[in-house]
Protein backbone atom coordinates (compact mmCIF):
# COMPACT_ATOMS: atom_id res chain seq x y z
CA UNK A 1 0.00 0.00 0.00
CA UNK A 2 1.23 3.42 -0.89
CA UNK A 3 0.97 4.95 2.50
CA UNK A 4 3.00 2.17 4.04
CA UNK A 5 5.93 2.84 1.78
CA UNK A 6 8.84 4.65 3.25
CA UNK A 7 9.14 7.95 1.43
CA UNK A 8 12.11 8.06 -0.96
CA UNK A 9 12.36 11.78 -0.72
CA UNK A 10 12.17 14.27 2.04
CA UNK A 11 9.38 16.77 2.01
CA UNK A 12 11.99 19.46 1.99
CA UNK A 13 12.95 18.32 -1.49
CA UNK A 14 9.41 18.62 -2.70
CA UNK A 15 8.47 21.92 -1.19
CA UNK A 16 10.30 24.99 -2.24
CA UNK A 17 13.15 25.35 0.20
CA UNK A 18 12.21 28.86 1.24
CA UNK A 19 8.62 27.97 1.94
CA UNK A 20 9.70 24.87 3.74
CA UNK A 21 12.06 26.68 6.04
CA UNK A 22 9.49 29.34 6.54
CA UNK A 23 6.84 26.94 7.59
CA UNK A 24 9.21 25.13 9.87
CA UNK A 25 10.13 28.39 11.46
CA UNK A 26 6.50 29.27 11.86
CA UNK A 27 5.62 25.96 13.44
CA UNK A 28 8.66 25.99 15.69
CA UNK A 29 7.90 29.57 16.54
CA UNK A 30 4.29 28.87 17.37
CA UNK A 31 5.24 25.89 19.51
CA UNK A 32 7.94 27.83 21.28
CA UNK A 33 5.54 30.69 21.82
CA UNK A 34 2.93 28.46 23.34
CA UNK A 35 5.38 26.92 25.76
CA UNK A 36 7.71 29.81 26.43
CA UNK A 37 6.38 33.04 24.98
CA UNK A 38 9.10 35.09 23.46
CA UNK A 39 11.49 32.32 22.53
CA UNK A 40 10.86 32.11 18.81
CA UNK A 41 13.95 31.98 16.65
CA UNK A 42 15.49 34.61 14.44
CA UNK A 43 18.70 36.55 14.22
CA UNK A 44 19.88 39.39 16.41
CA UNK A 45 20.56 42.79 14.82
CA UNK A 46 24.11 43.96 14.12
CA UNK A 47 25.97 44.89 17.31
CA UNK A 48 25.65 48.56 18.11
CA UNK A 49 29.42 48.95 17.98
CA UNK A 50 29.31 48.15 14.26
CA UNK A 51 26.71 50.75 13.35
CA UNK A 52 27.79 53.69 11.22
CA UNK A 53 28.63 56.89 13.04
CA UNK A 54 26.31 59.81 12.35
CA UNK A 55 27.91 63.18 13.00
CA UNK A 56 25.57 65.76 14.49
CA UNK A 57 26.05 68.96 16.43
CA UNK A 58 24.64 68.88 19.96
CA UNK A 59 21.86 71.44 20.26
CA UNK A 60 22.50 73.26 23.55
CA UNK A 61 18.81 74.15 23.87
CA UNK A 62 17.90 70.50 24.28
CA UNK A 63 20.18 69.10 26.88
CA UNK A 64 18.92 67.17 29.87
CA UNK A 65 19.77 67.63 33.52
CA UNK A 66 20.16 63.86 33.97
CA UNK A 67 22.91 61.86 32.35
CA UNK A 68 21.96 59.61 29.44
CA UNK A 69 20.93 56.01 29.97
CA UNK A 70 23.59 53.43 29.16
CA UNK A 71 23.49 52.57 25.48
CA UNK A 72 23.38 48.84 26.32
CA UNK A 73 20.14 49.42 28.22
CA UNK A 74 18.62 51.62 25.53
CA UNK A 75 19.32 48.98 22.89
CA UNK A 76 18.33 45.84 24.81
CA UNK A 77 15.19 46.95 26.64
CA UNK A 78 12.70 47.94 23.99
CA UNK A 79 9.02 47.83 23.29
CA UNK A 80 8.79 47.13 19.58
CA UNK A 81 5.84 44.80 19.09
CA UNK A 82 6.75 44.08 15.49
CA UNK A 83 9.45 41.84 16.94
CA UNK A 84 7.47 40.46 19.88
CA UNK A 85 5.84 41.55 23.10
CA UNK A 86 8.78 40.97 25.40
CA UNK A 87 11.24 43.78 25.87
CA UNK A 88 14.14 41.47 25.12
CA UNK A 89 12.65 40.47 21.76
CA UNK A 90 13.80 43.40 19.60
CA UNK A 91 17.45 43.04 20.62
CA UNK A 92 17.23 39.30 19.89
CA UNK A 93 15.24 39.36 16.69
CA UNK A 94 15.70 42.66 14.91
CA UNK A 95 18.28 41.22 12.50
CA UNK A 96 15.47 40.64 10.02
CA UNK A 97 14.86 44.36 9.56
CA UNK A 98 16.68 45.86 6.55
CA UNK A 99 16.98 49.63 7.01
CA UNK A 100 18.51 50.14 3.53
CA UNK A 101 17.17 50.81 0.97
CA UNK A 102 14.29 52.71 2.54
CA UNK A 103 11.75 55.21 1.37
CA UNK A 104 9.17 57.33 3.10
CA UNK A 105 6.02 58.44 1.31
CA UNK A 106 4.56 61.75 2.46
CA UNK A 107 1.08 62.36 1.12
CA UNK A 108 -2.47 63.44 1.89
CA UNK A 109 -3.57 67.02 2.25
CA UNK A 110 -0.32 68.48 1.01
CA UNK A 111 0.54 70.67 -1.93
CA UNK A 112 3.76 68.83 -2.73
CA UNK A 113 3.49 65.14 -1.91
CA UNK A 114 6.64 63.13 -2.36
CA UNK A 115 8.62 59.98 -1.81
CA UNK A 116 11.81 60.57 0.11
CA UNK A 117 14.74 58.22 0.01
CA UNK A 118 16.41 57.73 3.38
CA UNK A 119 19.64 59.29 2.08
CA UNK A 120 17.63 62.33 1.01
CA UNK A 121 15.97 62.53 4.42
CA UNK A 122 19.34 62.48 6.12
CA UNK A 123 20.28 65.63 4.17
CA UNK A 124 16.96 67.43 4.30
CA UNK A 125 17.92 69.56 7.30
CA UNK A 126 21.02 69.88 9.50
CA UNK A 127 21.28 66.95 11.92
CA UNK A 128 21.40 67.90 15.56
CA UNK A 129 21.79 65.92 18.76
CA UNK A 130 19.12 66.41 21.40
CA UNK A 131 18.99 64.72 24.76
CA UNK A 132 15.39 63.91 25.64
CA UNK A 133 13.71 62.04 28.45
CA UNK A 134 11.68 59.07 27.23
CA UNK A 135 8.77 58.03 29.44
CA UNK A 136 7.18 54.67 28.70
CA UNK A 137 3.51 54.20 29.52
CA UNK A 138 4.66 51.22 31.61
CA UNK A 139 6.15 53.61 34.18
CA UNK A 140 9.82 53.37 33.31
CA UNK A 141 11.97 55.99 31.65
CA UNK A 142 15.30 56.63 29.96
CA UNK A 143 17.33 59.65 28.86
CA UNK A 144 18.50 59.35 25.26
CA UNK A 145 20.69 61.46 22.98
CA UNK A 146 18.77 61.38 19.70
CA UNK A 147 19.95 62.61 16.33
CA UNK A 148 17.58 64.23 13.87
CA UNK A 149 15.86 67.50 13.07
CA UNK A 150 12.43 68.96 13.72
CA UNK A 151 9.64 67.04 12.03
CA UNK A 152 8.33 70.44 10.97
CA UNK A 153 11.21 70.70 8.47
CA UNK A 154 9.85 67.74 6.52
CA UNK A 155 6.24 68.81 6.87
CA UNK A 156 6.98 72.31 5.59
CA UNK A 157 8.70 70.77 2.59
CA UNK A 158 5.46 69.08 1.48
CA UNK A 159 3.32 72.14 2.28
CA UNK A 160 0.23 70.96 4.17
CA UNK A 161 -3.03 72.42 2.89
CA UNK A 162 -5.74 73.98 5.01
CA UNK A 163 -7.53 70.67 5.27
CA UNK A 164 -4.64 68.99 7.03
CA UNK A 165 -5.48 68.72 10.72
CA UNK A 166 -3.62 65.60 11.81
CA UNK A 167 -0.47 63.72 10.87
CA UNK A 168 -0.55 59.95 10.64
CA UNK A 169 2.58 57.78 10.79
CA UNK A 170 2.71 54.26 9.46
CA UNK A 171 5.36 51.72 10.34
CA UNK A 172 6.56 49.27 7.71
CA UNK A 173 4.25 46.31 7.15
CA UNK A 174 6.37 43.32 6.16
CA UNK A 175 6.15 40.03 8.07
CA UNK A 176 9.48 38.97 6.56
CA UNK A 177 11.18 41.85 8.30
CA UNK A 178 8.92 42.06 11.33
CA UNK A 179 8.37 38.46 12.49
CA UNK A 180 5.58 39.32 14.92
CA UNK A 181 3.46 40.64 12.07
CA UNK A 182 3.00 37.07 10.91
CA UNK A 183 -0.45 35.77 11.61
CA UNK A 184 -0.81 33.39 14.51
CA UNK A 185 -2.16 29.87 14.45
CA UNK A 186 -5.78 30.87 13.90
CA UNK A 187 -5.05 33.87 11.77
CA UNK A 188 -5.15 36.21 14.74
CA UNK A 189 -2.56 38.82 15.28
CA UNK A 190 -0.31 37.29 17.93
CA UNK A 191 0.37 40.65 19.46
CA UNK A 192 -3.19 41.95 19.72
CA UNK A 193 -2.35 44.90 17.47
CA UNK A 194 -3.49 45.54 13.91
CA UNK A 195 -0.67 46.00 11.43
CA UNK A 196 0.71 48.22 10.18
CA UNK A 197 1.33 50.14 13.38
CA UNK A 198 -0.31 53.52 13.11
CA UNK A 199 0.37 56.55 15.25
CA UNK A 200 -0.66 60.13 14.96
CA UNK A 201 -0.39 63.70 16.19
CA UNK A 202 -2.43 66.81 15.83
CA UNK A 203 -0.82 69.02 13.18
CA UNK A 204 0.18 71.66 15.76
CA UNK A 205 1.78 68.95 17.90
CA UNK A 206 3.67 67.63 14.89
CA UNK A 207 4.86 71.14 14.02
CA UNK A 208 6.09 71.78 17.56
CA UNK A 209 9.87 72.29 17.65
CA UNK A 210 10.28 69.46 20.19
CA UNK A 211 8.84 66.83 17.82
CA UNK A 212 11.92 65.28 16.28
CA UNK A 213 12.28 63.36 13.05
CA UNK A 214 14.93 60.96 14.26
CA UNK A 215 17.58 59.03 12.32
CA UNK A 216 20.18 58.25 14.97
CA UNK A 217 21.08 57.98 18.63
CA UNK A 218 24.25 57.94 20.71
CA UNK A 219 26.24 59.31 17.77
CA UNK A 220 25.23 56.48 15.42
CA UNK A 221 22.50 55.62 12.98
CA UNK A 222 19.39 54.16 14.63
CA UNK A 223 19.77 50.52 15.65
CA UNK A 224 17.09 48.24 14.19
CA UNK A 225 15.59 47.61 17.62
CA UNK A 226 15.09 51.35 18.15
CA UNK A 227 13.15 51.97 14.97
CA UNK A 228 15.68 52.15 12.14
CA UNK A 229 16.10 53.88 9.84
CA UNK A 230 13.72 56.73 10.66
CA UNK A 231 11.23 57.39 13.44
CA UNK A 232 9.71 60.26 15.33
CA UNK A 233 10.37 61.17 18.95
CA UNK A 234 7.70 63.12 20.80
CA UNK A 235 9.21 63.51 24.26
CA UNK A 236 6.19 64.88 26.16
CA UNK A 237 4.07 61.85 25.27
CA UNK A 238 4.31 58.21 26.29
CA UNK A 239 6.81 56.27 24.21
CA UNK A 240 4.34 54.38 22.06
CA UNK A 241 3.30 57.68 20.43
CA UNK A 242 6.74 57.89 18.82
CA UNK A 243 6.28 55.70 15.75
CA UNK A 244 9.26 53.67 14.57
CA UNK A 245 10.53 52.48 11.17
CA UNK A 246 8.22 54.84 9.33
CA UNK A 247 7.37 54.28 5.66
CA UNK A 248 4.37 56.57 5.25
CA UNK A 249 3.32 59.92 6.63
CA UNK A 250 -0.17 61.14 5.79
CA UNK A 251 -1.66 64.52 6.45
CA UNK A 252 -5.32 63.98 7.13
CA UNK A 253 -8.36 65.90 8.27
CA UNK A 254 -9.69 63.34 10.77
CA UNK A 255 -8.03 62.10 13.93
CA UNK A 256 -6.17 58.91 12.95
CA UNK A 257 -7.15 55.53 14.37
CA UNK A 258 -3.97 54.79 16.24
CA UNK A 259 -2.82 51.24 16.98
CA UNK A 260 -3.04 51.18 20.75
CA UNK A 261 -6.17 53.30 20.99
CA UNK A 262 -7.77 50.81 18.62
CA UNK A 263 -6.60 47.76 20.56
CA UNK A 264 -7.43 49.05 24.06
CA UNK A 265 -9.34 52.32 23.85
CA UNK A 266 -9.91 52.54 27.60
CA UNK A 267 -6.22 52.27 28.36
CA UNK A 268 -4.53 54.19 25.57
CA UNK A 269 -5.93 57.40 24.19
CA UNK A 270 -4.98 59.46 21.16
CA UNK A 271 -3.25 62.16 23.21
CA UNK A 272 -1.34 60.05 25.73
CA UNK A 273 0.50 62.99 27.16
CA UNK A 274 2.69 62.15 30.12
CA UNK A 275 0.56 63.14 33.09
CA UNK A 276 1.41 62.07 36.67
CA UNK A 277 -2.16 62.40 37.92
CA UNK A 278 -3.95 60.67 35.06
CA UNK A 279 -3.41 57.03 35.90
CA UNK A 280 -3.41 54.17 33.50
CA UNK A 281 -6.51 52.13 34.41
CA UNK A 282 -4.29 49.37 35.75
CA UNK A 283 -1.41 51.23 37.32
CA UNK A 284 -0.35 54.59 38.65
CA UNK A 285 1.55 57.07 36.49
CA UNK A 286 2.64 59.17 39.46
CA UNK A 287 6.11 57.67 39.60
CA UNK A 288 8.51 55.99 37.23
CA UNK A 289 11.63 53.91 37.36
CA UNK A 290 14.51 55.50 35.53
CA UNK A 291 16.39 52.64 33.93
CA UNK A 292 19.70 52.31 35.74
CA UNK A 293 18.37 53.79 38.96
CA UNK A 294 17.14 52.04 42.04
CA UNK A 295 14.45 54.23 43.57
CA UNK A 296 11.36 55.44 41.77
CA UNK A 297 11.17 59.09 40.77
CA UNK A 298 8.24 61.42 40.55
CA UNK A 299 6.87 61.65 37.04
CA UNK A 300 6.81 65.21 35.72
CA UNK A 301 3.92 66.86 33.92
CA UNK A 302 4.43 66.49 30.16
CA UNK A 303 7.57 64.55 31.06
CA UNK A 304 9.27 67.76 32.13
CA UNK A 305 8.42 69.70 28.97
CA UNK A 306 5.38 71.52 30.38
CA UNK A 307 6.84 74.99 29.85
CA UNK A 308 7.19 74.25 26.15
CA UNK A 309 4.06 72.29 25.33
CA UNK A 310 1.37 73.05 27.94
CA UNK A 311 0.00 75.85 25.75
CA UNK A 312 -0.93 73.27 23.08
CA UNK A 313 -3.59 71.98 25.42
CA UNK A 314 -4.93 75.19 26.92
CA UNK A 315 -8.55 74.73 27.92
CA UNK A 316 -8.53 71.01 27.27
CA UNK A 317 -9.54 68.43 29.86
CA UNK A 318 -6.55 66.13 29.84
CA UNK A 319 -8.29 63.60 32.06
CA UNK A 320 -10.90 63.09 29.37
CA UNK A 321 -8.45 63.47 26.51
CA UNK A 322 -5.99 60.94 27.87
Amino acid sequence: MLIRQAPRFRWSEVTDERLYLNRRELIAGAAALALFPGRAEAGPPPPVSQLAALPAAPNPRYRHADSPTKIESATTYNNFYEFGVEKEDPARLAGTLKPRPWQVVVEGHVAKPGTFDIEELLRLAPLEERVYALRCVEAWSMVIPWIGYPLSALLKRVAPTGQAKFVEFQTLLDPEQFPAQKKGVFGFSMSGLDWPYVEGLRLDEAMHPLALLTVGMYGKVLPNQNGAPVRVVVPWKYGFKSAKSIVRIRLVSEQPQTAWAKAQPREYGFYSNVHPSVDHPRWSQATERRIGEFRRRQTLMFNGYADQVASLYAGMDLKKNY
Partner: protein
Amino acid sequence: MTRRGRILLKTLVWGACLVPLALLAWRAWTGDLTANPIDFVTDTLGRWGMRMLLASLALTPLRLVLGIGWPLILRRLLGLFAFFYVSLHFLVWVVLDHFFAWAQMGADIVKRPYITVGVSALALLVLLAATSTSGMVKRLGARAWRRLHRIVYVAAVLGVLHFMWLAKVGRIEPYVYAAILAVLLGVRLAGAVRAFRVRRRGTRAGVTSESSSDNRPPRRSIVARTEIMGGPDMAPDHRTKGADAPLGLPRPPALGAVPGGARTHPRNPGRPSRARFVQGR
Protein backbone atom coordinates in the same frame (compact mmCIF):
# COMPACT_ATOMS: atom_id res chain seq x y z
CA MET B 1 7.51 3.63 47.91
CA THR B 2 10.08 2.92 50.52
CA ARG B 3 11.01 5.44 53.15
CA ARG B 4 14.42 5.90 51.58
CA GLY B 5 12.86 6.35 48.17
CA ARG B 6 10.61 9.04 49.53
CA ILE B 7 13.45 10.87 51.17
CA LEU B 8 15.51 10.70 48.01
CA LEU B 9 12.66 11.95 45.84
CA LYS B 10 11.90 14.81 48.15
CA THR B 11 15.53 15.81 48.38
CA LEU B 12 15.81 15.89 44.62
CA VAL B 13 12.68 17.97 44.22
CA TRP B 14 13.84 20.29 46.98
CA GLY B 15 17.01 20.90 45.04
CA ALA B 16 15.13 21.35 41.78
CA CYS B 17 12.82 23.91 43.37
CA LEU B 18 15.81 25.99 44.37
CA VAL B 19 17.27 26.07 40.86
CA PRO B 20 15.24 29.10 39.66
CA LEU B 21 16.38 31.05 42.70
CA ALA B 22 19.97 29.96 42.19
CA LEU B 23 19.79 31.02 38.53
CA LEU B 24 18.45 34.38 39.59
CA ALA B 25 21.27 34.75 42.08
CA TRP B 26 23.76 33.80 39.38
CA ARG B 27 22.35 36.36 36.97
CA ALA B 28 22.48 38.98 39.73
CA TRP B 29 26.10 38.07 40.42
CA THR B 30 27.08 38.35 36.75
CA GLY B 31 25.07 41.54 36.26
CA ASP B 32 22.68 39.86 33.85
CA LEU B 33 19.31 40.98 35.21
CA THR B 34 18.32 43.03 32.11
CA ALA B 35 18.12 46.80 31.98
CA ASN B 36 15.30 46.75 34.53
CA PRO B 37 16.48 44.34 37.23
CA ILE B 38 13.67 44.95 39.71
CA ASP B 39 11.01 44.19 37.13
CA PHE B 40 12.90 41.16 35.95
CA VAL B 41 13.31 39.75 39.44
CA THR B 42 9.65 40.44 40.31
CA ASP B 43 8.47 38.74 37.14
CA THR B 44 10.74 35.74 37.48
CA LEU B 45 9.72 35.10 41.07
CA GLY B 46 6.03 35.58 40.25
CA ARG B 47 6.19 33.18 37.35
CA TRP B 48 7.93 30.47 39.33
CA GLY B 49 5.49 30.94 42.18
CA MET B 50 2.68 30.44 39.68
CA ARG B 51 4.28 27.38 38.11
CA MET B 52 4.94 25.69 41.45
CA LEU B 53 1.43 26.42 42.62
CA LEU B 54 0.06 24.77 39.49
CA ALA B 55 2.49 21.87 39.88
CA SER B 56 1.29 21.26 43.42
CA LEU B 57 -2.29 21.33 42.18
CA ALA B 58 -1.57 18.93 39.34
CA LEU B 59 -0.69 15.98 41.56
CA THR B 60 -4.17 14.93 42.62
CA PRO B 61 -5.57 15.14 39.06
CA LEU B 62 -2.54 13.17 37.92
CA ARG B 63 -3.63 10.43 40.22
CA LEU B 64 -7.29 10.72 39.35
CA VAL B 65 -6.75 10.59 35.62
CA LEU B 66 -3.63 8.55 35.10
CA GLY B 67 -3.61 6.63 38.35
CA ILE B 68 -0.10 7.82 39.14
CA GLY B 69 -0.18 8.36 42.85
CA TRP B 70 3.38 8.50 44.07
CA PRO B 71 4.00 12.19 43.24
CA LEU B 72 1.41 13.11 45.84
CA ILE B 73 4.06 12.99 48.52
CA LEU B 74 5.50 16.10 46.85
CA ARG B 75 2.40 18.15 47.25
CA ARG B 76 3.24 19.93 50.46
CA LEU B 77 6.77 20.52 49.30
CA LEU B 78 5.65 22.14 46.04
CA GLY B 79 2.94 24.12 47.78
CA LEU B 80 5.40 25.52 50.28
CA PHE B 81 7.86 26.39 47.55
CA ALA B 82 5.10 28.20 45.68
CA PHE B 83 4.47 30.14 48.87
CA PHE B 84 8.20 30.79 49.19
CA TYR B 85 8.53 32.22 45.68
CA VAL B 86 5.38 34.31 45.95
CA SER B 87 6.57 35.67 49.29
CA LEU B 88 9.87 36.70 47.75
CA HIS B 89 7.91 38.20 44.85
CA PHE B 90 5.92 40.24 47.35
CA LEU B 91 9.01 41.24 49.35
CA VAL B 92 10.71 42.52 46.19
CA TRP B 93 7.63 44.63 45.55
CA VAL B 94 7.69 46.05 49.08
CA VAL B 95 11.42 46.54 49.47
CA LEU B 96 12.93 47.07 46.02
CA ASP B 97 10.02 48.35 43.98
CA HIS B 98 8.38 50.68 46.48
CA PHE B 99 11.03 50.92 49.16
CA PHE B 100 8.51 50.78 51.99
CA ALA B 101 6.37 53.59 50.60
CA TRP B 102 3.40 52.28 52.55
CA ALA B 103 0.92 54.92 51.43
CA GLN B 104 1.70 54.24 47.80
CA MET B 105 1.48 50.49 48.28
CA GLY B 106 -1.75 50.80 50.24
CA ALA B 107 -3.25 52.89 47.45
CA ASP B 108 -2.16 50.27 44.92
CA ILE B 109 -3.72 47.46 46.93
CA VAL B 110 -7.02 49.31 47.07
CA LYS B 111 -7.05 50.79 43.58
CA ARG B 112 -5.32 48.27 41.35
CA PRO B 113 -7.32 45.11 40.87
CA TYR B 114 -4.29 43.09 39.86
CA ILE B 115 -2.53 44.03 43.10
CA THR B 116 -5.72 43.46 45.11
CA VAL B 117 -6.09 39.90 43.86
CA GLY B 118 -2.34 39.28 44.19
CA VAL B 119 -2.37 40.29 47.83
CA SER B 120 -5.52 38.25 48.46
CA ALA B 121 -3.87 35.22 46.90
CA LEU B 122 -0.82 35.72 49.06
CA ALA B 123 -2.96 36.06 52.20
CA LEU B 124 -4.60 32.73 51.39
CA LEU B 125 -1.23 31.11 50.80
CA VAL B 126 -0.05 32.39 54.19
CA LEU B 127 -3.04 30.73 55.80
CA LEU B 128 -2.37 27.49 53.96
CA ALA B 129 1.34 27.50 54.70
CA ALA B 130 0.68 28.17 58.38
CA THR B 131 -1.64 25.18 58.56
CA SER B 132 0.49 22.92 56.42
CA THR B 133 2.16 21.01 59.23
CA SER B 134 1.20 17.53 60.26
CA GLY B 135 0.43 18.89 63.69
CA MET B 136 -2.13 21.20 62.16
CA VAL B 137 -3.79 18.33 60.34
CA LYS B 138 -4.24 16.68 63.71
CA ARG B 139 -5.41 19.75 65.45
CA LEU B 140 -7.98 20.69 62.83
CA GLY B 141 -9.02 17.16 62.10
CA ALA B 142 -8.27 15.72 58.70
CA ARG B 143 -11.66 16.56 57.33
CA ALA B 144 -11.71 20.21 58.30
CA TRP B 145 -8.11 20.49 57.20
CA ARG B 146 -8.90 19.14 53.77
CA ARG B 147 -11.77 21.49 53.42
CA LEU B 148 -9.63 24.42 54.47
CA HIS B 149 -6.93 23.48 52.03
CA ARG B 150 -9.27 23.45 49.10
CA ILE B 151 -8.80 27.22 49.35
CA VAL B 152 -5.65 26.62 47.37
CA TYR B 153 -7.81 26.59 44.27
CA VAL B 154 -9.11 30.05 45.14
CA ALA B 155 -5.53 31.23 45.58
CA ALA B 156 -4.59 29.79 42.21
CA VAL B 157 -7.54 31.42 40.46
CA LEU B 158 -6.62 34.76 42.03
CA GLY B 159 -2.99 34.26 41.01
CA VAL B 160 -3.98 33.62 37.40
CA LEU B 161 -6.33 36.62 37.42
CA HIS B 162 -3.47 38.70 38.78
CA PHE B 163 -1.30 37.68 35.86
CA MET B 164 -4.04 38.13 33.27
CA TRP B 165 -4.80 41.62 34.51
CA LEU B 166 -1.26 42.87 34.65
CA ALA B 167 -0.04 41.32 31.40
CA LYS B 168 -0.09 43.45 28.32
CA VAL B 169 -2.00 42.31 25.27
CA GLY B 170 -0.24 39.76 23.17
CA ARG B 171 1.22 37.78 26.04
CA ILE B 172 0.13 34.18 25.89
CA GLU B 173 1.62 32.88 29.12
CA PRO B 174 -1.19 33.99 31.47
CA TYR B 175 -3.72 32.23 29.27
CA VAL B 176 -1.63 29.08 29.22
CA TYR B 177 -1.73 29.06 33.02
CA ALA B 178 -5.43 29.83 33.03
CA ALA B 179 -6.06 26.89 30.71
CA ILE B 180 -3.97 24.53 32.83
CA LEU B 181 -5.77 25.63 35.96
CA ALA B 182 -9.15 25.17 34.27
CA VAL B 183 -8.25 21.61 33.32
CA LEU B 184 -7.02 20.80 36.84
CA LEU B 185 -10.13 22.29 38.40
CA GLY B 186 -12.30 20.44 35.93
CA VAL B 187 -10.76 17.11 36.88
CA ARG B 188 -11.29 17.80 40.56
CA LEU B 189 -14.88 18.84 40.01
CA ALA B 190 -15.56 15.75 37.94
CA GLY B 191 -14.05 13.70 40.75
CA ALA B 192 -16.24 15.42 43.31
CA VAL B 193 -19.37 14.89 41.24
CA ARG B 194 -18.54 11.24 40.88
CA ALA B 195 -17.92 10.91 44.60
CA PHE B 196 -21.26 12.54 45.26
CA ARG B 197 -22.99 10.17 42.88
CA VAL B 198 -21.31 7.19 44.49
CA ARG B 199 -22.35 8.37 47.90
CA ARG B 200 -25.96 8.92 46.86
CA ARG B 201 -26.17 5.52 45.34
CA GLY B 202 -24.52 4.05 48.40
CA THR B 203 -26.91 5.80 50.74
CA ARG B 204 -29.92 4.73 48.81
CA ALA B 205 -28.74 1.17 48.83
CA GLY B 206 -27.97 1.49 52.49
CA VAL B 207 -24.43 0.34 51.96
CA THR B 208 -21.06 1.95 51.61
CA SER B 209 -19.71 2.90 48.27
CA GLU B 210 -17.28 0.04 48.27
CA SER B 211 -19.82 -2.69 48.67
CA SER B 212 -22.60 -1.12 46.68
CA SER B 213 -24.53 -3.61 44.73
CA ASP B 214 -24.11 -2.18 41.28
CA ASN B 215 -20.92 -4.05 40.60
CA ARG B 216 -19.00 -1.04 39.52
CA PRO B 217 -15.32 -1.67 38.91
CA PRO B 218 -13.41 -1.00 42.09
CA ARG B 219 -11.14 1.55 40.47
CA ARG B 220 -14.00 3.96 40.00
CA SER B 221 -14.71 4.07 43.67
CA ILE B 222 -11.06 4.61 44.44
CA VAL B 223 -11.06 7.42 41.94
CA ALA B 224 -14.11 8.91 43.53
CA ARG B 225 -12.63 8.63 46.95
CA THR B 226 -9.29 10.12 46.15
CA GLU B 227 -10.87 13.50 45.74
CA ILE B 228 -11.59 13.64 49.42
CA MET B 229 -8.39 12.13 50.66
CA GLY B 230 -6.52 14.37 53.01
CA GLY B 231 -3.19 15.13 54.53
CA PRO B 232 -0.60 17.53 53.25
CA ASP B 233 1.38 14.99 51.33
CA MET B 234 -1.36 12.62 50.42
CA ALA B 235 0.75 9.60 49.78
CA PRO B 236 -1.38 6.98 48.14
CA ASP B 237 -1.04 4.77 51.17
CA HIS B 238 -2.87 7.44 53.08
CA ARG B 239 -6.07 6.12 51.81
CA THR B 240 -5.68 3.71 54.60
CA LYS B 241 -5.29 6.32 57.22
CA GLY B 242 -8.84 5.97 58.33
CA ALA B 243 -8.77 9.35 59.99
CA ASP B 244 -11.95 10.16 58.22
CA ALA B 245 -14.35 8.19 56.14
CA PRO B 246 -15.22 9.47 52.68
CA LEU B 247 -17.82 12.16 53.05
CA GLY B 248 -18.82 10.91 56.43
CA LEU B 249 -19.57 7.39 55.32
CA PRO B 250 -18.47 4.50 57.43
CA ARG B 251 -15.17 3.55 55.91
CA PRO B 252 -14.65 -0.02 54.93
CA PRO B 253 -11.36 -1.55 55.89
CA ALA B 254 -9.00 -0.92 53.04
CA LEU B 255 -5.79 -2.41 51.89
CA GLY B 256 -3.22 -2.36 54.65
CA ALA B 257 -5.41 -0.40 57.03
CA VAL B 258 -3.90 0.25 60.38
CA PRO B 259 -6.26 -0.18 63.29
CA GLY B 260 -6.65 3.11 65.08
CA GLY B 261 -5.23 4.74 62.01
CA ALA B 262 -6.18 8.19 63.19
CA ARG B 263 -3.08 8.08 65.26
CA THR B 264 -0.67 7.15 62.55
CA HIS B 265 1.80 9.60 61.27
CA PRO B 266 0.10 11.55 58.51
CA ARG B 267 2.96 11.13 56.09
CA ASN B 268 3.93 7.66 57.04
CA PRO B 269 1.09 5.46 58.09
CA GLY B 270 3.46 2.81 59.30
CA ARG B 271 4.84 5.09 61.93
CA PRO B 272 3.09 6.32 65.03
CA SER B 273 2.33 9.98 64.85
CA ARG B 274 4.35 12.52 66.70
CA ALA B 275 1.16 14.41 67.27
CA ARG B 276 -0.11 11.51 69.30
CA PHE B 277 2.64 11.94 71.82
CA VAL B 278 2.10 15.63 71.96
CA GLN B 279 -1.56 15.13 72.57
CA GLY B 280 -0.81 12.44 75.07
CA ARG B 281 1.06 14.76 77.34
